[in-house]
Structures are given as structure tokens and as C-alpha cells.
């Protein structure tokens, strides 16, 4: 049953979806042809995910029609969408870590024999699919033991096993090394060559340019551009996404390093082994690495939120190896954590209360009292200084956009004026406009003579901001580069564990 090629694989017409307070999709049209890789781009909140949820039967549209292979469809649930030949790889994988690859792939569509799951057939099926599509993976491996890149293959195999002809991938490269991302795109291209269709939801310009055929850009719930990839540029897409011209991948001028502020030697904790590093005043040291190579654990140990197993940590010459988080903050440490919703803020609390955290025992209080007027005045000062768009200090922080919440968090920590700032993923999930603002703030903080230790999965961010780059792989610092030596290819290779050679160290 091959559908006629002339019909688009997926055709959305006038999709409108309203949530309380927002119009997530406003009469969106999207046409995806058979055998193409179609990128759906837009900033956070532009409506990409909503549109895909509608297409995949997870949300009912308020208006509009969906046609798949030329037939009108009306999906009430993802299983309807799957039955029509759609398949989705979610950003957070939906796999059973304790089961084998084969068990995961055939789950809910198991080959049966005498009413029981036919394991041999399942393994055979996985091998066939893997060979056919160039998705090599051991069918007997336990999924929990696999690296992220392979888990993603399992997700794709799962869809192929169920006969998906159109694959939707939501931010598929967020957790991959550059090499893994390249491998993924090779797979996607060969799937497209077989006549399957790929919809790629992403905000990464580079991979869209390299890996897609056509691009649809959403902004504020509306389609603002339909582009043919070979005829467009990163600047054009970025301008469509933000509605104005933006300067991409700015590389800031290097700082002027002074005294050593943070000195770490032989540090070991969970997932971190024998880390040595120094950060000087007036310097940003970047830690590059694929998520899950010990960066989070390292930063948590430095922030006092994870016990140190071995080694020493000194802040401005003072030993803080076993100091509590509070002691470290008093001695001059501020910290912007990776997960702003779960760790960095209390979204249900007010903007003012969120901005007071950490200041509530120092500048804002006297003798244990915390006057509400002081908290509000502090909030108004920071809201103005950091350009946080909040309706009032009393407003709930959950009403802020991702970028504004991040500005709040970074502003609060910068306001400590601490000699050392730890920053993790400062612009993850933040709009392009806010990214520039945040980068400028960090550079200004460095130039004011503070030391900054930056962890980021975005190579362009590391390269733009860091004066020195350390690469972390499997819990160790495997390479150190000066700003000029840290080009994308070199870093990418080192992040994948490829090259451990030390180009040059400053210390």
C-alpha cells in the first residue's frame, strides 16, 4: 500500500491551538513532502512543540485539518498517529533502561509465538532493521548501559519496527556529541533516500543548514518563513526566528587574568576523577563536554552540594574542600545551576522571593528579620538592572518566560558580586535575543575582575566566551586549549574522547 507520491506526506492546514493566556498556534500551515528532511524551527514558545503534539494526537487543535498521505485524519491519541504511519522520538527518550534493546524495540508490537513473546524473532527483527538502515546496535545490550547516541538509535529502530513512514524528531542532537550528531544525520539522510519523511524540530541553525531540505520557521505561533535550505543562510533563518537581525556566534575579546581565585587539585567525587584546574580573576574558563561526563558533579562538588571524595579546593587561597554551601557563599562564591526550574528557582514563589534567595541572610536582613519592603526594593533594583520582564515583584516566577527566568537567576547570582561565579548552561533553552544579553553580562562580570567557571554543551558559547577551554570526558579533564586553539573540530574530537593531547596550558 504505497501512497501516491504527489500527495504530501503530512499536510497541516490552519492549525490553531489556544491555551489559557496564549495562542500557541495561529492558523499554521505546514506541508512536508515525501522523502524530505523538513526542519521546523523557532524559539522557545514559538509553537513548534504544540504543533507536533497536535500532529501526533497528543493535543486536539481548536481549528484546522490534518492530512497524512493525502487522507484527512483526526487523531485522538498517539496510537492513532502511529497507526497512520507517524512516529516520534521525544526529547527525553521513552525507553526501559533495564530491558534489552530488542525488548525495547518490539515493545507493544511484539512478535508472538503460541501467545508468548518470541524473543528469537525479536532479536532477528532488530538485526534486520539495523542492517537495513545502517543503525548498528547490539540487540542484547541493556538499554541503560548504552550511551545516549545509541539509545536514540533504539528509539528510531522502535519507530521503524512499527512501520513509521514519517519520523518526527524533537531536538534530537541536544544530548549528542558532534560526531554522534553527524552519524544521526547520515542515518536520517539514508532514511529520506528510502522515501521516508523526517520532520526535525530544532533550534540549532548549523544542523538545519547541513541536514535538511526545507525549513519552516515559526514565531509567536505563526509561520514566518518557508525556506529551501540550499537557498538560505544561518542569518536569514535567525532573523526569521527572532524578527530582527542578530549577530551569531560572536567571539568576545579575551580578558586579562589576574590572581588565582579558584584552585582545584586532584578532585574526585561521583563521576569525577582527579580534576586539576585553576580559574583566575578576570578570566572565564570554559568546560566543554558532552552532557553526562562529570561536569554537573564537578560543579556541584565545587558549590558544596556534593561531598568531595578526594583532593583539595581552595577559594582565594582558603581551603573550602569540606565547607558547606553556605560557608562557600559567604567566602565568595555564586552559582548559576543548570536546571533553572528544579534547582535555580522556586517557580511557584514570587519574583521578589526568588531574587531574595542567598541575599536573605546577608544584605537584606538584620538580626534575623527580613522586612518585606527590603525584599521588594531589592527585587525592583535587580529587575531594572538586568532587564527582567516581570509585571510586578509580587508576580509568580512561573509567569516568566524561560529567558526571563534565566535573567532573574543570573542577575541574582551576579548581584552577589562574588569573586567566583560558577555557571552551568547559561543559555540552554533561552531565546537568541536573551542569549546575547546573558553573554554580555558574563563578559562584563569577568571584566570587572571576577573569576568565572563556565560549563556549556554549546561549543559556540564556550568558544565565544571562554579565555581557556577545558574538555571533560568520562570524569577527567582530558585537554586544555587556549582561546585561539579551541576550534570546533578540535574540541569536537576531544569531547568524543578522541584526542587527549594538551595543546598548551597557561598555568
Amino acid at each position, binding site marked *: 500500500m504505497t501512497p501516491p507520491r504527489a500527495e504530501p506526506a503530512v499536510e497541516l492546514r490552519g492549525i490553531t491551538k489556544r491555551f489559557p493566556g496564549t495562542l500557541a498556534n495561529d492558523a499554521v500551515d505546514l506541508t512536508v513532502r515525501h522523502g524530505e528532511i523538513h526542519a521546523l524551527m523557532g524559539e522557545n514558545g514559538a509553537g513548534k512543540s504544540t504543533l507536533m503534539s497536535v500532529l501526533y494526537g497528543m493535543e486536539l487543535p481548536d481549528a484546522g485539518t490534518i492530512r497524512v498521505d493525502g487522507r484527512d485524519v483526526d487523531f485522538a491519541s498517539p496510537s492513532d498517529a502511529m497507526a497512520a504511519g507517524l512516529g516520534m522520538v521525544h526529547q527525553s527518550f521513552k525507553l526501559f533502561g533495564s530491558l534489552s534493546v530488542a525488548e525495547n524495540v518490539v515493545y507493544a508490537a511484539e512478535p508472538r509465538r503460541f501467545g508468548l513473546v518470541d524473543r528469537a524473532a525479536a532479536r532477528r527483527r532488530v538485526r534486520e532493521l539495523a542492517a537495513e538502515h545502517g543503525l548498528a546496535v547490539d540487540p542484547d545490550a541493556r538499554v541503560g548501559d548504552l550511551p545516549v547516541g545509541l539509545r536514540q538509535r533504539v528509539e528510531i529502530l522502535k519507530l521503524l519496527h512499527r512501520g513509521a513512514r514519517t519520523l518526527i524528531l524533537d531536538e534530537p542532537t541536544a544530548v549528542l556529541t558532534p560526531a554522534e550528531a553527524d552519524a544521526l544525520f547520515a542515518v536520517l539522510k539514508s532514511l529520506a533516500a528510502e522515501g521516508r519523511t523526517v520532520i526535525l524540530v530544532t533550534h540549532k541553525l548549523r544542523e538545519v543548514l547541513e541536514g535538511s531540505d526545507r525549513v519552516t520557521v515559526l514565531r509567536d505561533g505563526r509561520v514566518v518563513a518557508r525556506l529551501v535550505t540550499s537557498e538560505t543562510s544561518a542569518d536569514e533563518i535567525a532573523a526569521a526566528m527572532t524578527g530582527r537581525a542578530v549577530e551569531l556566534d560572536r567571539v568576545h575579546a579575551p580578558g586579562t587574568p589576574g590572581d588565582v581565585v579558584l584552585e582545584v587539585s586532584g578532585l574526585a567525587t561521583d563521576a569525577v576523577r582527579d580534576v586539576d584546574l585553576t580559574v583566575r580573576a578576570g578570566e572565564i574558563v570554559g568546560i566543554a563536554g558532552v552532557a553526562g561526563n562529570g561536569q554537573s558533579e564537578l560543579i556541584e562538588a565545587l558549590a558544596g552540594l556534593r561531598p568531595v571524595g578526594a583532593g583539595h579546593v581552595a577559594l582565594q587561597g582558603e581551603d573550602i574542600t569540606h565547607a558547606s554551601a553556605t560557608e562557600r557563599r559567604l567566602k565568595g562564591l555564586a552559582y548559576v545551576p543548570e536546571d533553572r526550574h528544579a534547582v535555580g528557582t522556586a517557580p511557584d514563589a514570587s519574583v521578589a522571593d526568588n531574587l531574595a534567595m542567598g541575599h536573605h541572610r546577608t544584605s537584606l*536582613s538584620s538580626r534575623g*528579620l*527580613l522586612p518585606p519592603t527590603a525584599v521588594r526594593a531589592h527585587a525592583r533594583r535587580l529587575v531594572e538592572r538586568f532587564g527582567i520582564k516581570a509585571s510586578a515583584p509580587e508576580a509568580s516566577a512561573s509567569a516568566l518566560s524561560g529567558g526571563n527566568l534565566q535573567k532573574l537567576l543570573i542577575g541574582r547570582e551576579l548581584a552577589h558580586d562574588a569573586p567566583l561565579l560558577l555557571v552551568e548552561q547559561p543559555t540552554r533553552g533561552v531565546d537568541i535575543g536573551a542569549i546575547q544579553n546573558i553573554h554580555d553580562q558574563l563578559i562584563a562580570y569577568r571584566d570587572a575582575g571576577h573569576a568565572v567557571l563556565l560549563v556549556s554543551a554549546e561549543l559556540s558559547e564556550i568558544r565565544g566566551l571562554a579565555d581557556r577551554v577545558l574538555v571533560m570526558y568520562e570524569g577527567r579533564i582530558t585537554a586544555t586549549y587556549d582561546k585561539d586553539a579551541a576550534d570546533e573540530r578540535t574540541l569536537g574530537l576531544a569531547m568524543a574522547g578522541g584526542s587527549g593531547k594538551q595543546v598548551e596550558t597557561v598555568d
Partner: protein
Amino acid sequence: MNDRISGALRSPVTFSVLAGVVIGALFLVGTGADPVTAYEAVLTGALGADGIGSTLTTTTSVLGMALALAIPLRARLINLGGDGQMVLGGITAAVTGLYAPLPAPLSVALALLAGMAAGAAYAALAALCENHLGVPLLVSSLLLSYPAVSLASYLARYPLKEPGSSLPQTRTLPDGVELPAFGDSTVTVGLVLVVLAAAAYWFTDRRTAIGYEIRMTGLNARFSAYAGVERRGLTLKLMSVSGALAGLVGAIGVLSFPYRFVDGSLTAPGYTWTGLTAALLAMAAPVGTVVSAFFFAVLQVGGLAMERTTEVPRELTQVLQAIVIVFLAARLRLPGRRLNRRKEAV
């Protein structure tokens, strides 16, 4: 101002209480009773001249326990051991009142303090179990409650039993060892103490650094830990204060009529659970806790009056309480779910 009024009307609490009243009325109609008469009986019974004293006495205990449970709840810690802490406070106050060789007013003060100390120490034990042995507070506080109640029961039945009495109770406290009452009512200075505790809670919650830390811990424990709030220390402090208040309620119960420790008399009215319900209804907010504690005291006392005058069993008021809580729980879940969907969708 209009915003505040419409906000209050739309709040889940108002909705739940109204829903409880409406469904309660349907129950009444279903059993052939007249809801208007029944509700009227509840209100006049609880708030009329004959009932108000009883309501305020009940409020003393319910509000005391509501505060005891609200304070840790503000940081999302649940103390289920209120009964044990209250009873230990009561028996300790009884022993102090009976045997302290002091002038009566000092005995009273000492008995109150001893009761609070006993409750605090016992609640702190539950906190230590969580902090150092990894027993969840919910479990440690609840399980520790039973031996405490049994111990007090044993003391009242054997070593401290009133000679010659057939009841499991201690001797009456010496003359003058009692909380001063207002006029000839049963309302004592205990009510003032509990209201002062509520005021202190409000002040701490709104105007102090520790109150801020408690609120933030309740809203996002990882957030406050990230900023350096030490969870174990906070758990220990909150549980100690909670236990002290529960002990105070026990001590007040002993130092008021019948001026002795009677086995079961502190736990039988279910102050701990009513208090917990009141604290949950108010989501542990200080003013809300006072209001909802009073509301439940009215229901409890008014229910008895209703039973007397209309033949509707007082269990109806318990049904009302339950309906209010069920609605509240349902309403509280709904916006959360919608929010999560939003997050996924955007």
C-alpha cells in the same frame, strides 16, 4: 479590592467549602431532613450564647494542633505524630503539676514548659530518625506516636493512677494548679497562648529570614538546598517547634477541666487529625490556618448541637469535612496538571 474579592471567591478553598455545604445539603434532603434547619442548628449551636464557650475551648485544641502541623507543613514536612507528642506533653504536665514543690502559679508555668519540652523532644526524635537513619519523617513520626500514647496510658493506669478510682486517670492537680479561665466558662488562658503562637507563626513566616527559608523549602526544597539552607537542621528545628506546640496542647488539656490526665481524653476528640485537615486546607498559611481551625471547631461543636435539636447525626459534619478535603485535593491537582501540559506544549 475587587480583585481580592473575586480572587477569594475563585479560590479552591471557597469552592471546596461551598461544594461541601451543597453536597451536605443533598445528603440531608436525601435522608428527609431539612438542610436549612440543620445548618442553622450547627451555626446557632456553635456560635450562640450556649455554644460559643465550647467552640472556643475546642478551638484552643484544634488551632494548637493545626499550628503544630502547619509549621512543618510550610516546608512540606508532615508530622503525623501529633497524638503522641500531645499525650506526652499532657502526661508530663500532669506529673509536673502533681509533684513540683512550687507555688501554684509557678507550677502551672513549669507544667506548660515541661509539656512543651516533652513534645518537642519526642518530635525531634522523629526528625533525627529521618536525618540520620533515613526513616521518612511521615513514617517515623507516625510510628513513634503509638508507643508514646501507650506509655501515657500505662502511667495513667498503673503508677500514677488515682487511688481508689476505677477510671484510668491521675489524681486531680493540687488546688490552684490550673490555667485561669475567663469568667465561669471553660475557656482558659490556653486560648490566649495558642493565639499568641499563631501570631508568632505569622510574624516568623512573613518577616524573618528563617520564615523565608521555610517557605522556599516548601515551594522547592532543591532550590533552598542549592542556596545553602541546611535541610536536616531545618527539619529538626521545625519538628521541635511542632512537637512543642503539640505538647502545649496536651498540657493545656490537663491544666484545664478536668484538671488531670485522663487516658484517652486528649486523643479521643481527634484534634490531631482535625488540626491536620485544617492545616492542609489552609496550605499551612498562618492566617488561613487560624480561620480553618475555627471553621472546623464550629463544625465539631455545631454538629453535636445539630444532633440534639434535629436528630441529624453529628457524623454529617464529618461528612462535610471529608467532602471539603476531597474537593480541595481534586482542585489542587487540576491546575497543576494543566500547567504541566502547558510546559510540554510550549
